[in-house]
C-alpha cells in the first residue's frame, strides 16, 4: 500500500518532467557531498550551515525552474501541409503569462517519436506578459502524416546546475505530401505535347487557332494577327482554342509483384509516388482536369488547388500492396478513361505483364527510369 502510494507520488512528481545535472552541477553536487561529509564528521555547525546553503541552492534551482515552466504558454504554428524534402517554416509561440516575473533561459524543442528534436530555438529572456514567435525551418524527409507529439522546454535557470525539462502535450498532425521533383526535360517535352490533340472547340488559352475577330479595347496587343491585319487594314486579333479543360488520368500502380524485392520496391514505389505527385502538380498548373487512381482508390476528374490538395493527400498516405496468390495471375488492372482523355500509368518498376496490358494505353511511365 505504502509502496504503491510512493510510486504514485513519484509518478506524479515526475510527470512530464525530467532533470539532469550539467557539468557544473556535477561539480557542485560533489562539493556539496564533500561539505556534507565534513559537517557530519566534525559536527561543526558552521559547516552544516554551508551544507544547508548548498542544498538550498539546489532546492531554489528546482523551484525557480519549475516556476519558469509554470508561467509559460507555448504553442506551435505549422503550415497546413508540407512537401517531403522541401523546407518549410514552422514557429513556436511562447508567451509569459506572469505579469510580474520575467522568464529566463528557455530552450524549446519539438518532441517527435518520444525524442526531443532541437530546432535551435533559445530564449534568453522573456519579459512579463510578453509573447514571442520563434520560427525555424522544418524539413521532413518522408511523405505521410508527420506527428509532432509535444513541445519540450529546457531550462538551466537560475544557476546552470541542472537542465530541467518539461514536456507540454501540444500535439500537431501535419500531412506531408510526396516530394515534388523536377521532371526530366525529355519527359516534359513529351508531356508538353499531351492534350494538344484534345483542344476543345471553344475560346480559351491554348495554341490552336480558334477564331479571328476585330480588335476590341482591352485585348492583349500580343494577340494581334498582323498578317490578316495588314491584309484587311483592320486590327484583327487571334483567338485560340481552350486547352484548359483537357483531361488526364494518372494511375499509380501499388501492387508489389515480387515481395522478395521489398527494399528495392519500396524505394521505387516512393519514386513512383513522387512522380505521380509531380505530374499532378504539373497538370494542375496546366489547368488540366486530373483524375487520380491510386490502387483501389480513385479521385474523379476535377481541377484546381483544392483538388490538387486532395490528390497529394491521397498520395501522401498511399502504401504499396503485396500481390496475393489469388490475384497474381490476373492481368494488370487498367483504368477506363473518359472519351479520348489521356491516361498515364505510373509503375514503380518494369513489369513483364505490362507489354500485354499496355496495348492502347497512352503513356506508361516507369518511375525508376523517369526519376
Amino acid at each position, binding site marked *: 500500500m505504502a509502496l504503491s502510494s510512493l510510486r504514485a507520488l513519484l509518478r506524479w512528481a515526475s510527470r512530464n518532467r525530467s532533470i539532469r545535472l550539467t557539468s557544473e552541477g556535477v561539480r557542485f553536487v560533489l562539493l556539496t557531498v564533500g561539505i556534507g561529509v565534513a559537517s557530519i564528521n566534525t559536527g561543526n555547525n558552521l559547516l552544516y550551515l554551508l551544507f544547508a546553503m548548498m*542544498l538550498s541552492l539546489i532546492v531554489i534551482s528546482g523551484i525557480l525552474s519549475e516556476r519558469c515552466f509554470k508561467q509559460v504558454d507555448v504553442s506551435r504554428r505549422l503550415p497546413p501541409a508540407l512537401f517531403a524534402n522541401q523546407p518549410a517554416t514552422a514557429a513556436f509561440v511562447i508567451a509569459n503569462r506572469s505579469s510580474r516575473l520575467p522568464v529566463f533561459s528557455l530552450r524549446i524543442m519539438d518532441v517527435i517519436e518520444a525524442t526531443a528534436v532541437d530546432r535551435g530555438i533559445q530564449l534568453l529572456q522573456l519579459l512579463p506578459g510578453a509573447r514571442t514567435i520563434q520560427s525555424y525551418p522544418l524539413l521532413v524527409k518522408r511523405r505521410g502524416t508527420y506527428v509532432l507529439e509535444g513541445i519540450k522546454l529546457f531550462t538551466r535557470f537560475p544557476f546552470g546546475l541542472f537542465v530541467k525539462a518539461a514536456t507540454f502535450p501540444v500535439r500537431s498532425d501535419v500531412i506531408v505530401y510526396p516530394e515534388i521533383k523536377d521532371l526530366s526535360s525529355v519527359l516534359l517535352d513529351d508531356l508538353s505535347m499531351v492534350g494538344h490533340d484534345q483542344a476543345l472547340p471553344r475560346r480559351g488559352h491554348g495554341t490552336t487557332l480558334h477564331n479571328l475577330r476585330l480588335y476590341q479595347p482591352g485585348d492583349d496587343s500580343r494577340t494581334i494577327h498582323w498578317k490578316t491585319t495588314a491584309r484587311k487594314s483592320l486590327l484583327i486579333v487571334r483567338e485560340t482554342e481552350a486547352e484548359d479543360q483537357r483531361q488526364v488520368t494518372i494511375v499509380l500502380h501499388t501492387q508489389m509483384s515480387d515481395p522478395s524485392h521489398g527494399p528495392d520496391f519500396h524505394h521505387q514505389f516512393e519514386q513512383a509516388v513522387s512522380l505521380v505527385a509531380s505530374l499532378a502538380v504539373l497538370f494542375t498548373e496546366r489547368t488540366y482536369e486530373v483524375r487520380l487512381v491510386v490502387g483501389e482508390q480513385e479521385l474523379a476528374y476535377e481541377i484546381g488547388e483544392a483538388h490538387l490538395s486532395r490528390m497529394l493527400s491521397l498520395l501522401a498516405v498511399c502504401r504499396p500492396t503485396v500481390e496475393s496468390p489469388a490475384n497474381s495471375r490476373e492481368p494488370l488492372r487498367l483504368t477506363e478513361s473518359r472519351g479520348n482523355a489521356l491516361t498515364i500509368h505510373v509503375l514503380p518498376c518494369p513489369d513483364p505483364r505490362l507489354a500485354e496490358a499496355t496495348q492502347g494505353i497512352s503513356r506508361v511511365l516507369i518511375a525508376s527510369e523517369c526519376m
Partner: protein
Amino acid sequence: MTLQRALRVSAKLLTLVAFSALVGTGKTPAVVVIGGFLALTISFAQECEWGSRWNPLHLPRTVWNGALFIACLVTVMDFLWGTQNALQASLYVLAFLMTNKLLTLARLKDVPQLFVIGFLEFLAAAVLTVDLWYAMAFVVYLLAAIWALLLYHLSCEAVQHMRVADEACLASMPVPLTARFFWTTNAIAIGALVVTSSIFLVMPRTGFGFFQQAHGTPIRTSGFSEKVDLGVIGAVKQDPTLVMRVQFPELEGEPAERVYLKGASFDHYTGQSWTNTFPRRRFLAKTDDGLFELSPRSALDRNVPRVHQDILLEALDISVLFGLPFVNEIRGPFVSLETDGMGGLWLPHALPRRLQYAVTSSHTSLSNEDRQRELSAYPTEVKRRFLQLPSVDPQVADLAHAVTRDVLTPYGMTIAIKQHLLSSYAYSLDVGSILSASPLEDFLFTRKTGYCEHYATAMVIMLRTVGIPARLVTGFLPGEWNDFGHYYVVRQQDAHAWVEVWFPRSGWVTFDPTPSVMKPVLSPLLKQMGGLVDSIRLKWDRFVIHYSFYDQMTVAQGLRNQGETVRTYFSSLIAMLKGWLVPAQDAGAVPTSQIPWRALGSVFLCVACVLFIGACLRRRRVNTAFLNSDFASIRLYERMLAVLAARGVSKRSAATALEFSARVCQECQAAGPLVQELTALYYRGRFGHESLSHYDLQQAEQLLTQLASVPR
C-alpha cells in the same frame, strides 16, 4: 553596464566577502591579509575606466610560477615550524590563487574558478571561527553568491545564444538589470536564506568526531583550580573578557536576589593558599535522558524553591562548571562528570570549546532553628575539615573573639564578623602583585584594604577561630543584565570569592563579606548597543553554533506536545458539540451556559477565513487569466464605447459588437471604418485565442485617437 562587467564585478564582490570572512577570523597571516586586499583593490580598479588598461594583468608565466612556488614553500614552512596547522598554513596558497585569478580574470571559464577559490576561503573561515562576524558574512555571501551565479548563468546562456566561440559578445550585451530583475534576484536570495535556515534546523545532527578542531585558545582564568593562592583572583578582576552567559528560562526579568555562580570550594588554608583536600572525586551517574543527578529527585524537599539556569560557558582553561548553589542536577554535552565532596562539578579535563549546559539548583535558606541555636557540637568530619586553622597570627583569633564577644549564636557570630569586615575594611584591587608571606594578617591589620578573596578568607578564618565551620568558595557574580536577551553577561572581572557557613539544620549557607563596588557606568546608548549585539551573539551561539541533536529532539517533542494539546482540545470541543447538538438521546443536554461559545466562534472564524482566502485566490486566478489573454482587447473596446458614448452613440446591451459596428457605420460614416477595425481587433483578442501584439495595440491607439477627433 554590460553583462561581462556585471559578472566580473559580482565575482570579485563574492571573493571580497569570502576573503573578509576569512580575515575576520583573526587567524589569517598579516602578509596574506595585506596581499589579498591589495589584489582585491587592484582588481576593482581594473573595472574602472582608468584601470581597464591593466585588465587583465599580463605578467610572464615564470613570475606567476615563481610566486606559486614561494607560496607553497611558505605553506610548508608554516606547517612545519609556524602554526603547525594545515588549514592555516594553506591560506598562503589560497591567497596566491585568489590573487592570480583576480588579476588575470579574462575569460568566462575563469569565473567559476574564482567562485571555487572564494568558496574555499569561506569554508576555511567556517572552520576557523564561530564569531558573530561570520553570521553577517554568511548573509552577505549568500546574497553575493546568488547574484554571481545568476549572472554567470546568464552569461553562459548568452554566449550559447549568440553561438560564438568566445565571450566577445558579452562585452556589448547589456545586463537585464531592471528594477524588477534587481528585486527578483534579492528575493531569490532571501528565499535561499529561508530555505537554508529551514534545512539547517531540520538536518539531523550527528558528529563522528574525527578531525574535530577546537575553536581558539581557551581563556586563561585563575582561582578555580584545586589550589588557589590568595591574591590570584585580583589578576583577573580587571579583565573584561566574557566568560559565560546565564539565562533563567523560568524568569521574566532579572532575579530579585543577588546571584552567585559557584565554581570551586576550598576547605584547607595554609596561610597563603587555599586547597581542596577531598581525596577523590565521585563520578556522577548519567540517566537515560542525559541527566546527571547530584541528589536523587525523590530526596529533594518539595518546599525548597528550585532555579533553572541555561549556561553558555566560553572555552576556559579550567575544568570546573558553574551554577547557582546548590546544584541538584545538570544536563549537557558531557560524556562524564565528577563531583567533589563540597558539591563542586568537574569535567575530567578542560574542554577547549564553548559549552552549553542546563543546571537546576535548590536555593537554601537558613532555618529559624539555626538562627537561634547556640554553639553546639558539630560532626567530627565537619569539624576536621571545616574548622582547620593554619598557623596564623594570634591577633586574628583575638579579633574574631572581640567581634563576637556579645553574641551567643553561630548565626549571630557570622553576621557580626561579616558586618565587621564590611564596615572596617576598604575594597581595593590595588594591593600589589607580589604575594605576601602572610596575606591575611596584612589585610586585617596592616593594609586594611583588599578584595573579595581577602574578605572571604578573613571571614572563614575568623569563623573557624570561634568554632564555626566555614569554607571559601570561588565563582562569579552575575555581571550585567541584558535586557534584550534576558540573561546575565558574566566577565572575568566578575570573578568573586565568598563564604559558606555550615549550620546543623540548614547545611551550607552563603554569606558574602565583600562590600559592593560601584562599577563604571557606560552611557545608556552604548550599553543598549552592547546589550543588543551581545544578545544577537548569544542567539547565534544558541541556535547556530551550539544547535544540537538534543535541541532538535526538544523541538520535535514540543511540536508533538502541541499537536497533542490541539488534538485534545478539538476532541473535547467535538464531544461538547455532540452533547449540545444531540440532547434528546439522553438527559445529558448541555446547558446554554456551558456551550463553548468562544471555541465555536473561533472555529467559525477560521472557516470564514479559509473560505475568504480561497475565494480571493480563486478570484485572483481568474483575474490573472483574464488579464493575460483578454484584458487588453476588452479595455480597448471599452474605451471605444466610451468615446462613442461621448458622441451620443451608445451600445445597447443586447447588441453584439458586430451589430453595433454595423449600426455605427450606418449612423456615422466617418467613424464607421474606425469602429469596424477596432471591433475586429477586439474580436481577435477576445475570442481569437491570440493576444494582441505590440503593433496591434499601437494601431488601436491610433484608431482611438482618430475616433476621438471625428466630428460629432
